[in-house]
């Protein structure tokens, strides 16, 4: 049977103006279900700004949003998006399970926390996704990687379909637990947009890479063709990277 591509989302002609300065101009970006997309840009190119617009933290000056091929409002669109940044948004003084299940929008008609219930729910979820982090551990005692994994879990629990990994350190990307969780979440219809100023980092997971320069998208390329082009040509200046010797390409079966 021939399977059709399904578009997860599309943003069209998105612009963002602040005090008469155009910070993002005519951004077009889309992602198919099953693929991971990278967004490459130098510092201050607008990657985080675009991520903030997509997850609803900022309102664009203009543009269209599509979710699953239907036109939707910005607020409707952002309900499906969750952003994870280098600085964790979890509460350090609370435990893992409290961060996962207490600090979420819910419709429970109760003001009491049912500790036993959320503990069981956390353990089940951890088992389901093959994670071994103590649910009772305070988040401030976790490593950066573990904090990131918990945020990814939280995104999944909240029903996000697109998780934006905004400028996450490359060391996290090299950990097997991180790549395993990405793979497992993809099989559960949660997809990833990764932003970075390191093209090699994006090459680890992305199927396609968008290139943001001077506040607009200048190109997108398939990951497998990436090495054929000299990326420094995009910025009219040589871009030097310190490539980690442990850089490897992770290949997963397509979802």
């Amino acid at each position, binding site marked *: 049977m021939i399977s059709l591509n399904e578009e997860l989302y*599309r943003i069209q002609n998105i612009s963002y103006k602040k005090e008469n300065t155009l910070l993002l101009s005519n951004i077009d970006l889309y992602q198919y279900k099953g693929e991971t997309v990278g967004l490459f840009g130098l510092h201050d190119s607008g990657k985080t700004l675009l991520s903030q617009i997509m997850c609803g933290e900022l309102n664009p000056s203009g543009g269209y949003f599509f979710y699953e091929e239907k036109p939707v409002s910005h607020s409707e669109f952002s309900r499906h998006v969750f952003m994870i940044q280098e600085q964790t948004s979890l509460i350090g003084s609370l435990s893992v399970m409290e961060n996962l299940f207490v600090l979420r929008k819910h419709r429970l008609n109760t003001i009491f926390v049912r500790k036993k219930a959320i503990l069981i729910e956390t353990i089940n979820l951890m088992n389901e996704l093959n994670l071994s982090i103590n649910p009772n551990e305070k988040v401030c005692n976790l490593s950066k990687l573990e904090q990131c994994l918990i945020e990814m879990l939280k995104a999944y629990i909240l029903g996000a379909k697109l998780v934006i990994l905004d400028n996450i350190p490359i060391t996290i990307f090299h950990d097997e637990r991180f790549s395993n969780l990405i793979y497992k979440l993809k099989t559960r219809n949660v997809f990833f947009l990764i932003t970075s100023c390191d093209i090699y980092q994006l090459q680890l997971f992305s199927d396609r890479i968008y290139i943001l320069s001077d506040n607009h998208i200048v*190109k997108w390329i398939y990951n497998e063709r990436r090495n054929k082009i000299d990326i420094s040509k995009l910025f009219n200046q040589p871009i030097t990277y310190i490539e980690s010797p442990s850089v490897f390409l992770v290949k997963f079966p397509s979802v």
Partner: protein
Amino acid sequence: MKILTNKKFYKILDIHTKDAVKQMERYYENEILKKQTELLMLQNQINPHFLYNALECIRAEAVMNDNPKIADMTYTISNFFRYSISTKGDLVTLSDEINVIHNYMKIQQYRFRDRFSLKVNLPDTWANVKDSIIPKLTLQPIVENSIVHAFNDVIENALITIEIVHTKKHINIRVSDNGKGMDNNKLQQLKYSLDQEPVIYEPSKKKGNGLALWNVNRRLKLVFGDEYSLSIYSSPDLGTDVEIHIPYISINSDFTKKDD
């Protein structure tokens, strides 16, 4: 029955009048654009039948003189003009559009001795999608732009790639070239010009950069709605990509019957 205040009544009237005016504007603009496209193609008011007959005579002569290359070239040109000049509706199938690109490239390859090549990546679902509608001459001006602007300094390995992706409700078409591309300023200018108000084409003026793309973009918006438009990506030495995102609508659907 509802009793309205004067203010409310005029407000409702105003909304309806504005809607009606907007619809009329869209209709007339679409008509003007259709005419502009025809004008662009007709150029010097060539009588189409005269042209087809002349080309057919050349082809017959070439066949009789055992010159298959000239016969083939004439046949290709004849087909190309038949499609371009034909005034039968503004909406065609995607399959027709791809065929005309093959014809057009064949003509250019004859002219420039295979300097350019074309690669068309069709989706696995092509059989289902080829009857989808698209405004006539949407792809050809984009390919022509690549040949005229992207490859004017390129002597070999000039490649134009057309990639079609069929999603549940839409079709994404990407026309890429590996030509010289353009710098940020030029790209911004081109993108800005696409969103400008309608301009009336004057045949006496030299064909400007971006007019063809503006025309394509405008027709896509008029036919499918404002949320559908061209996306352009380009970078110096890395080529230019033009993406078209349109809804999948079969030629046999009610949408095209309305258009007739």
